[in-house]
């Protein structure tokens, strides 16, 4: 018996140690992951000097959470859909040519020292001199050209459509680049400038298509402020790159030596950790933060409602191929019937702000035509909703309290969101209730994510929430989501309601072709888009989802708030490092200990 016990305990301990140590043991293998194809990558193991402490010093470590929704899987900057789980792959390790500050609408030259259109079809760019990859090689214009050309070679890379209007990219010396275009989509190109991560040619040139589009890219070699340190199922650890080029060239050094990005098992765990000061920055959506922020347990960007900056717009997509959503009058009535205040105050407890009917974020308010909004905008008004319904022939024939279609057929609709997205589940309950009060029979339904997603892209839903346009330099990003065209069998990434209006599509295309520095030109097209959008109401923007951020100053201080001199975005979400997230790290300071 005794022997069994001790043998057993040894077995248990060993297996657990093996389990825990496995990822670490795997990590320092070869540099090239090379899944299958025999890739002739140079056998150099990158000489990265990663410190080897195993217990992290609290005063050197920044603990963050809220970006990842799954375990870390890859460090490949071209697998964009999983980047949330290894946030920092683009931004901390790999860097972009420019950064964009949505708070000031300013472009910040980054890997590129300068860049601009010399004529309508030519863009010239100079790469900063003195940038090195973390393995010591210099970053030059050839690396940039190589990265761009990957999109030309492989259709399965996200930026490959740029090559529909990009003719060539030529290297001029070590640091100069010239891009030649035919009918460029200026807005999309500008967007790519701060989203396209540049990779080192000397380590990527020999890789196969499989490896580039879907390889894990372990031990990434980038140019950024941090290096990959380690990971496990519930965390990513990044360690500061002590030889980062910007320290010398721009005088910038991020304060935390290590960043531990945690995937908390639930939002409650994140909440407990941030209150206890175990977590420095939580980018999770935590209901009830309003109360905790007011009482001073945590800090938020605004000291009062809505507490959070706005990150994206939650839009109610209406399936315009199904009656009665194919009737603009019905859609307009619906827009008047939704009690957005209840969503903001009840479902979200004041953590969000109601959206402009145009859907444009406050950071893009320069492109809102207030005159159009005043004339055609809508807000919660059940009486007006009933009036429009009656006017369009929707009447309650059978006396059940809900209107029937003009042809007498019953109306029974569903509003959906994925199960488990608690804030949206409450929001669609408000939508259903307030629509019912206005006489429209809508029930809230919450399918599993997979089923919801299939209904969304196949267009079998009635109405559903979506917010897949992130913060951006241009209103085109939102319109590209709302009015994605052409209409296809599967609408994978926009215009889920299949709103088919060539006039609108032409306007969005026109906007895409306005040079991104021509603000007046953009405003003119946006005004036309808004006029048509608010007349037709193909979808209903409801509220701005917050850039959820609650932080604790117990270890790190100088977090961005509305009172900061030059506030940046307090976020670790993937895709936001280039929008100011990195600057937030750089501005951090150690809280003085008494």
């Amino acid at each position, binding site marked *: 018996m005794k022997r*069994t016990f001790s043998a*057993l305990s040894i*077995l*248990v*301990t060993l*297996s*657990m140690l093996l*389990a*825990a*140590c*496995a*990822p*670490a043991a795997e990590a320092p293998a070869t540099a090239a992951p090379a899944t299958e194809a025999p890739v002739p990558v140079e056998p150099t193991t990158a000489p990265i000097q990663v410190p080897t402490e*195993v*217990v*992290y010093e*609290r005063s050197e470590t920044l*603990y963050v959470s809220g970006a990842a929704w*799954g*375990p870390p*899987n*890859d460090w*490949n900057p071209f*697998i*964009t*859909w*999983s980047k949330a789980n290894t946030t920092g792959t683009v931004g901390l390790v790999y860097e972009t040519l420019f950064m964009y500050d949505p708070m000031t609408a300013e472009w910040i030259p980054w890997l590129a020292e300068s860049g601009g259109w010399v004529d309508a079809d030519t863009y010239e760019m100079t790469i900063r001199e003195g940038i090195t990859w973390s393995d010591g090689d210099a970053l030059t214009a050839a690396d940039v050209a190589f990265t761009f050309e990957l999109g030309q070679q492989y*259709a*399965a890379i*996200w930026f*490959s*459509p740029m090559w*529909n209007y990009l003719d060539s990219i030529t290297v001029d010396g070590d640091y100069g680049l010239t891009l030649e275009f035919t009918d460029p989509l200026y807005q999309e190109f500008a967007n790519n400038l701060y989203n396209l991560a540049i990779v080192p040619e000397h380590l990527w040139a020999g890789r196969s298509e499989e490896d580039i589009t*879907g*390889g*894990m890219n372990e031990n990434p070699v980038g140019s950024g402020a941090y290096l990959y340190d380690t990971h*496990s*199922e*519930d965390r990513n*650890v990044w360690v500061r790159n002590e030889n980062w080029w910007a320290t010398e060239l721009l005088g910038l050094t991020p304060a935390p030596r290590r960043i531990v990005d*945690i995937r*908390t*098992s639930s939002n409650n765990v994140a909440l407990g950790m941030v209150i206890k000061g*175990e977590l420095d920055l939580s980018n999770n959506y935590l209901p009830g933060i309003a109360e905790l922020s007011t009482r001073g347990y945590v800090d938020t960007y605004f000291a009062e409602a809505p507490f959070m900056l706005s990150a994206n717009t939650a839009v109610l997509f209406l399936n315009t191929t199904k009656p009665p959503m194919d009737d603009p009058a019905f859609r307009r009535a619906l827009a008047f019937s939704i009690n957005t205040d209840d969503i903001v105050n009840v479902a979200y407890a004041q953590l969000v702000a109601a959206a402009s009917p145009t859907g444009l974020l406050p950071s893009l308010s320069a492109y809102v035509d207030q005159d159009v909004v005043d004339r055609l905008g809508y807000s919660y008004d059940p009486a007006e909703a009933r009036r429009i319904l009656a006017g369009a022939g929707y009447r309650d024939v059978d006396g059940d309290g809900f209107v029937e279609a003009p042809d007498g057929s019953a109306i029974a609709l569903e509003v959906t969101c994925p199960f488990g997205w608690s804030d949206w589940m409450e929001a669609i309950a408000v939508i259903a209730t307030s629509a019912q009060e206005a006489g429209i029979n809508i029930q809230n339904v919450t399918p*599993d*994510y*997979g*089923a919801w*997603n*299939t209904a969304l*892209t196949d267009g079998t839903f009635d109405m559903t929430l979506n917010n*897949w*346009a*992130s913060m951006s330099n241009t209103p085109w990003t939102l319109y*590209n989501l709302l009015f994605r065209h*052409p209409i*296809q069998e*599967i609408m*994978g*990434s926009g215009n889920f309601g299949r709103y088919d209006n060539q006039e609108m599509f032409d306007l969005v295309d026109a906007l895409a072709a306005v040079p991104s520095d021509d603000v007046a030109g953009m405003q003119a097209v946006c005004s036309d888009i808004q006029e048509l959008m608010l007349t037709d109401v193909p979808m209903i923007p409801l509220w701005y989802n917050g850039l959820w951020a609650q932080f604790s100053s117990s270890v790190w201080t100088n977090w961005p708030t509305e009172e900061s001199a030059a506030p940046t975005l307090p976020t670790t979400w993937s895709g936001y490092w280039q929008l100011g997230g990195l600057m937030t790290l750089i501005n951090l300071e150690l809280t003085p200990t008494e």
Partner: protein
Amino acid sequence: MRRYFGRKLLIYLLTFFLAVTIDWLIPRFMPGNPVQNMLSRVAVHPEAIDAMRGYFTRAFGLDVPVWQQYLNFWAALFHGDLGVSVYMFPQRVADILMRAVPYDVALLLPAILLSWLAGNKFGAYAARTKWLDNTVLPFGYTLTATPYMWLGILLAWVFGIVLDVFPFAGAYSYDMSPHISWRFVGDVLWHWFLPFASLFLVQFGGWAIGMRNMIIYELESDYSHYLEALGAPRALVRKYAFRNALLPQLSGLALQLGVIVAGALVTEVVFSYPGIGYLLLAAIQNQDYFLIQGCFLFIIVFVLLANFAIDIIYVLVDPRTRRGMTGETA
């Protein structure tokens, strides 16, 4: 002997084949398209999305007819290839499982063996002590009737939140990376304890109750009375009763294995313990055919192997089975 094991092996192989086939079928009945879900958040041109969808549908082998997918699946399985995960793309399912399985083994083996040993000892002991019987019996019934998940939540709440003495999520602390040191080993054990305890307690209650009832039954049987009438010491009678009571407990273990593994899966979800259960939940939510298959494959193999082991042990401890095999008794 050979015929007995030959027959057993055949049954196990048949079970394996059927279970794996069901395992392959069920995820494919789920509504939705995994590749579509995987790519749904890539906000780019529709053309790029189309190109990517086609590319990855081919990469996952989902572009061929279903019957061919099934044959390919078996072919790959015999090569030890479980495919690439959709949810955790581009990681290979085999690699993911290799990382998770040790955590399951670390939970399951000790919980199953210790609870069986301790439960039986304790049940036998309780059967002869009146006050213990009166207190333990209701307690044991409560424990064994408790759903694993519920006890897990209760333990997490009491020891993790109210008393704050045990962590209730993850396999080791956030401020360390894996290495060999007492501090790290202690940390790993500290995280392991609550999920282990919730598995152990539920099973312990079941075995204790079972053994207590069996002992009472055996003590009432003819051979016990005969032994007593011969004047055998009480301890000797109990020893024989215990031995005889162990046999049904052993077959009970074989029957219980599936339930126990299922219990471990939900326990891992409760404690965010990075084993198969935790993976399986995420895999189902994300329609990851390959990861679901892999997780169930592990469960199937584990349960079958454990059953096989019990079959062998049974032969060793029960002479009647041995005799039955060689045809000594009718």
